[in-house]
């Protein structure tokens, strides 16, 4: 059991329940226009989403802080099961070539919807080290911006 606790340090699971239908939450998560309206950590960011919602195709979120900093998240859809499940790779542009993996489960809970995000690291294990500098830079920038606006 404690082993599992240690192992779980390489993936992150977060869930939240919303008073909205699964269809509606799934759409908010996959429609470029809707994503642009909410997929920003705080009001100090604006997000432009480009989404090609097909397995093997790309999405790209360009997140701009009001101070001018731009962060881009991009990846490939691996699994699309509307309105229940989404799996996609995740990478910060300018970061390492190694992707992380995001799985989003949309579960009906009465009339509400439970969203569970599983963010796993390092789907590619080779050649990670040499790319890691940029990755860390991204995270540091993200941390800075998140803490300054918190």
């Amino acid at each position, binding site marked *: 059991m*404690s*082993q599992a606790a*240690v*192992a779980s*340090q*390489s993936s*992150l699971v*977060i869930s*939240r*329940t*919303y*008073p*909205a*239908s699964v*269809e*509606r*939450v799934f759409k*908010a*998560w996959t429609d470029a226009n*809707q994503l642009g*309206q*909410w*997929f*920003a*950590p*705080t009001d100090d960011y604006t997000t432009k989403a480009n989404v090609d919602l097909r397995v093997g195709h790309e999405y790209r979120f360009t997140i701009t802080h009001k101070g001018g900093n731009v962060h881009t998240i991009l990846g490939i859809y691996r699994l699309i099961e509307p309105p229940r499940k989404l799996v996609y790779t995740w990478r910060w542009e300018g970061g390492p070539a190694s992707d992380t993996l995001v799985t989003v489960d949309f*579960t*009906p*809970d*009465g*009339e*509400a919807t*439970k*969203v569970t*995000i599983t*963010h796993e*690291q*390092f789907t590619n*294990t080779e050649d*990670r*080290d040499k790319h*890691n*500098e940029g*990755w*860390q830079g991204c*995270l540091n920038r*993200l*941390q800075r911006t*998140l803490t300054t606006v918190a």
Partner: protein
Amino acid sequence: MVKYSTSLDTTFSALSDPTRRTILLTLQRGHASVTELARPHDISMPAILKHLHVLEQAGLIEQKKTGRVRMCRLTVAPMQHAADWLSLYRVFWENQLDALGRFLEQTGPEKTKKQENKLCRKPPSHPSRRS
């Protein structure tokens, strides 16, 4: 500045083995000799030494020879960095989920469906199935 960047991947790679995780858990309780660390595992001494080498390379443990006994102890920094990585993402996703909540609230229930909007902001977490 710590050598944060290189150790992060190595940390996760080192943590990817159950024997090594058990060794780390043992060392969480304090330092231990190689013999003590090997005891719960049904593997050869060279195999244990190899695991210890991986953990040492990842900077997770330190080995010191005192006389004929080789002692190991945990070094906390890389584990802390791994935890930091996750904390960052936790903050990130919590923020995103808050933002989604606001968005769903602002845009209201879909017009095609007539839903009674009497659900409070924090609906019960236990599943309740519709018949």
